[in-house]
């Protein structure tokens, strides 16, 4: 069948998206720059860079190191703060007819609740990504998602504020012993879906200075190098929680990669690092995915979600 006839629409909780490829939080800023290269309304949604309650400078430079088939970043959640973000970025995105998933990050469970309260009164948002797994915070102990109980506290606080109107996606780290266990915890605490995976914690040592290269010493590894980790994490979580929608991400740079995550169990796929190397990667991936689905006889994306788990 012709690829144009494949229905690529998807849902995450009660949010519907006409297309399954999304930006990844922290890899598209607030969409303005990528809009120069393709219309944002043509992709599933723009997932905005994780925003905190107050403006934040982030970590010192160097913030980046290229690694084989990937890169480390150590940005540290630089951003304008939620008030400026809601005043400037969200209205602009909605004016482009883009769907918007707002990613939030906090230093405490209370900060997440404060952010959620501000989002509740902002119309037009498709979903909230609760980033409890950013590795670039001052204290590794602040990565909520390495601990099931702290993860649950954050999601519980957000859920109490949001009610049922906007789906909540909890973004998890693969840097845990049992990701399905953390996933089950946040779903029990009220998350509607999961965003899998955040970057993997890594380090590069500079052979000239013979010290850690990044200003923040450690950074998040992203790019094709981590794709098998993403596929594994999505597969394991889908197996444990077959009815929970997953927004998959991790090293996707082609339509083939996106289909791999979908077969593992993702309902939608975010593209991050690939956009750094190619500003039109997202739109190319979406077109390639549609062709690959057609070639395999799928009439809709939904048929392919989790297909690798069939008996």
């Amino acid at each position, binding site marked *: 069948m012709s690829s144009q006839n494949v229905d690529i629409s998807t849902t995450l909780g009660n949010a519907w998206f006409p297309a399954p490829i999304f930006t990844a939080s922290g890899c598209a800023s607030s969409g303005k*720059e990528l809009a120069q290269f393709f219309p944002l309304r043509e992709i599933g949604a723009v997932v905005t*860079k994780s925003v905190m309650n107050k403006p934040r400078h982030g970590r*010192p*430079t*160097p913030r*980046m190191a290229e690694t084989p088939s990937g890169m480390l*970043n150590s940005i540290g959640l*630089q951003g304008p703060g939620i008030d400026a973000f809601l005043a400037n970025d969200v209205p602009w995105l909605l004016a482009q007819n883009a769907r918007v998933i707002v990613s939030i990050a906090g230093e405490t469970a209370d900060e997440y609740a404060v952010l959620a309260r501000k989002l509740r009164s902002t119309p037009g948002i498709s979903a909230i990504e609760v980033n409890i797994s950013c590795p670039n915070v001052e204290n590794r102990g602040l990565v909520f998602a390495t601990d099931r109980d702290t993860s649950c506290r954050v999601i519980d606080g957000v859920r109490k504020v949001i009610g049922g109107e906007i789906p909540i996606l909890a973004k998890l780290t693969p840097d845990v012993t049992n990701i399905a266990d953390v996933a089950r915890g946040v779903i029990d605490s009220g998350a509607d879906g999961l965003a899998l995976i955040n970057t993997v914690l890594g380090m590069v040592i500079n052979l000239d200075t013979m010290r850690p290269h990044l200003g923040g010493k450690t950074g998040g590894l992203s790019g094709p190098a981590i794709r098998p980790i993403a596929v594994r994490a999505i597969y394991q979580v889908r197996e444990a929680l077959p009815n929970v929608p997953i927004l998959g991400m991790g090293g996707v740079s082609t339509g083939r990669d996106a289909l791999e995550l979908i077969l593992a169990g993702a309902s939608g796929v975010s593209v991050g690092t690939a956009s*750094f190397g190619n500003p039109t990667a997202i739109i190319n991936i979406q077109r390639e995915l549609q062709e690959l689905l057609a070639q395999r006889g799928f009439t809709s994306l939904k048929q392919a979600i989790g297909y690798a788990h069939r008996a």
Partner: protein
Amino acid sequence: MSTINKAAAQLTATLISNKRIGAYHQLIFSVGDVVRHCRPGNFIAIQVGGDSSRMVLRRAFAISRTSESAQFGGTVELIVAPHGSGSKWLCSLSEGAEVDVVTPLGKAFGIPTEPVNALLIGGGYGSAPLFGLADLLKSRGCKVDMVLGASVGSKIYAPMEGKRSVNSLKIFTEDGSMGETGRVTSQLAEIIAERGVEIIYSCGPMAMLKAITDIATTLGVMHQASVEESMACGIGICMTCVLPVRGDDGNISMKRSCIDGPVMDGASVCWDLVGKSTELLG
């Protein structure tokens, strides 16, 4: 808030010439009509390594010159040091090779509305974009003097044809193998006074830009610096190439050198805070 260069486009460019010049390679790419939007100070971001490359990020290079001809259409010239794996790959390409590029990117050098006395200062291959700038300034009636510096003579980039727009050219090398022994700042205060310099344009390593800023600020001379900070994307989405910059309101914020630069007002950059904990920014 600054935005991405409105003319930025992604296209396939063809390498039409690859020549070694001293420690560098002069690469000329045919890029078509987009060349009309390329201004001195703008840069180009190039995908490297081919389809099966393990290098996932683009490499950014200052555009040194542009031209348009009947044979090749619009072309851009880049001066590349084969230093890392990406630039080595680029310098190994043969004529006729095609690469994926995004250009023009970044903020260009600001051009004075009236003829002024300009001093252009380049460190190493940082001199490359200054020759196109010299042509433009001269065409606007400016008097253009140039000072170049490098550790050794082979790292001075000063093409013969590039010198025609320059009133004078002074070269410093740290080992004395070309020109005078010293750095670009060694006689800077004297040169500014002698030539009545009203604006400085610079491009080169961070330490050089800081040293120029110190002297320019003391003497009350405007200074536009083209910064070099490592970039992952070049288009403003990765937030890695940031520098602490003091805004008009007095507050310091981390600005993207790919969008708010690479050309910045030297006096607004907090050079001492580069690479330091951002808690010092207040």
